[in-house]
């Protein structure tokens, strides 16, 4: 598999981390937008995609060492920041793949600036409100409980890490090296800025979906404990020509659980 190298890119709000790899031989570059988990570093599916495509994965401000979250207050600011990232990296109209919060960001870019997205893949996307099909709470829940909603396989190393962090913080958070907790607090705070109220959605997004021109694939993990399938269905229904694919055996963190399958689906979709 191709490797992803980390670099720092200057944007209007500050320097952000970007992981890049692969070459541009097979069509448009792929931009990957991560979820509230900030899963980008070391993500296997990106390395697989980089075998045949140029892959660019920025870390959003507030995640990792990316700066500038204090200058971002809402999704509109987030969209402008991501456009800056596109511009700085010379990405005119990449294929955009986003997971959950990142899927929501991708949909916001594609509705507002359809010409900047040549192809769209929304994986367990947030962003919509569907009465009776609410997205489960992510803020303030014990990490072990959250891990069970995020992963189909409780033995997944990240699920295990969340569970042990939860146990340790219940015992005495003061005993843990703070460096272990810092990224969790930082990324949740950044997510809250975009997604606390309204909770993980933009009430105007659903009626703007008709603006999307990119060929769109919506991917739903059948065991997603966080976002009901109705959200994937609503995206697929709202975006002209969109396809909905179910991935068995995957929960919310589908790219971590089924990297081969996601790489295959993305590769086929953008080919």
């Amino acid at each position, binding site marked *: 598999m191709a490797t992803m190298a980390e670099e720092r890119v200057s944007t209007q709000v500050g320097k952000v981390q970007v992981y890049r790899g692969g070459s541009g031989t097979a069509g448009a570059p792929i931009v990957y937008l991560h979820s509230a988990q900030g899963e980008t570093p070391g993500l296997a599916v990106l390395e697989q995609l980089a075998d045949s495509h140029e892959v660019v994965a920025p870390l959003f401000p507030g995640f990792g060492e990316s700066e500038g979250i204090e200058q971002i*207050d809402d999704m509109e600011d987030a969209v402008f920041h991501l456009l800056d990232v596109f511009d700085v990296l010379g990405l005119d109209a990449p294929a955009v793949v986003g997971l959950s919060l990142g899927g929501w960001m991708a949909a916001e870019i594609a509705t507002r600036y359809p010409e900047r997205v040549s192809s769209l893949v929304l994986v367990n996307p947030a962003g919509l409100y569907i009465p009776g099909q609410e997205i489960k709470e992510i803020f303030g829940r014990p990490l072990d409980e959250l891990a069970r909603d995020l992963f189909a396989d409780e033995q997944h190393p990240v699920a295990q890490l969340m569970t042990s962090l939860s146990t340790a913080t219940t015992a005495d*958070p*003061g005993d843990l090296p703070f460096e272990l907790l*810092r990224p969790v*607090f*930082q990324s*949740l705070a950044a997510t809250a*800025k975009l997604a606390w*109220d309204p*909770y993980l959605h933009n009430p105007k997004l659903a009626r703007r979906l008709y603006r999307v021109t990119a060929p769109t694939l919506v991917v739903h993990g059948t065991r997603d404990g966080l976002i009901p399938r109705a959200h994937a269905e609503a995206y697929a229904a709202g975006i002209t020509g969109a396809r909905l694919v179910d991935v068995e055996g995957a929960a919310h963190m589908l790219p971590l659980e089924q990297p081969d399958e996601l790489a295959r689906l993305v590769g086929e979709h953008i080919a």
Partner: protein
Amino acid sequence: MRIFSFHLMPYPALPSEYDGPAWVTCPNELYDPTVGTQIYNRYLDELVYADELGFDGVCVNEHHQNAYGLMPSPNLMGSILARQTKRAKIAIVGNALPLYDPPTRVAEEFALIDNISGGRLIAGFVVGGGPEYYSFSMNPAHARERFAEAHDIIMKAWTEPGPFEFIGKHYKLRYVNTWPRPVQQPHPEVWIPGAGSLETMDFVAQHRYAYMGIPYFHMSVFDRTFRMFREACERAGYEYDPLQAGWLTPIYVAETDEEARRQYEEHFFYFVKRLLPGINISPPGYTSIRSIENILKGAKTFALNLETWDEVVEGGYAIVGSPQTVTEKLTEYLRRLGTGNLLGLFQLGTLPADLTRRNLELFATEVMPALRAEFPEGKPVLGNQAAVA
């Protein structure tokens, strides 16, 4: 030394089979209005009684959608107290500023209470507890910014002639011109409670307000908190005045140490085990990363983790005993902490009316005079131990 009687107005009748949190999601079906009618009037009587007994002030506070403290509007309580008390300061500690939109409402209501009471209001400003950001669906990541902006609006409304325009990031008010204006000029005394956030301490120090240490931690946490606050005053370029700091603690006095524990223990543990669960939820972005690091250091000593009475006594979580014991302990701790305001919780959890009244009486007649003699008003109380704590 100024001595205040602080009331949380807790819900004392959670059914024994309910073992969930007392906050945010605690089902309001558990609230019985017949209990409410009785306790609200009783609790107000207890504050009025404190005024009659010679306390320097009474304190109420604001919490929402919970069983821990039944005052969603402390200003309603404050306005009743403004009429029913005669002499005591009325400390509203405080209004959760980000929850008032526009925040000129706080300037108006506080000024109103200051007017009715003839200038007895102490104006408390708080960010609001973590649970309130769930209960109001208000973005915790904006809490500090909104608090700072609301504070500026209120202080400007009180001290500068209106009308004026205030265009901030969160509030855009074209005509600020609040009536009534406060009786106390240039403005009522300002108190700000804090749980150890460095930003709050610096803010209080820079404005020369008073910092109230939030209770339910081991005494060692208070040592650190008030030392940090003194340092914040030094950073702001002046020497700390003890009247700028307040220590809030549960107090219970009975004839003997044994009787005090026997009468108090179960009520204290109802408070700890039934009313505290859920209070310590800290939503994302509510506290800065460096303050979280500081607050986590004391997290294990939070009263919620208490299991035995010995731990309560050793950690100074409540000051309980005979008049002599309580006097000695309070004297020792007040010297150690160097705080010029003592905020006592004389009713806690399920502590019934008769024991609460007796507690207030014994404290006022046997403990208060000794404390006043030990710490004359206006004289620094910071003991030698504070320097080495």
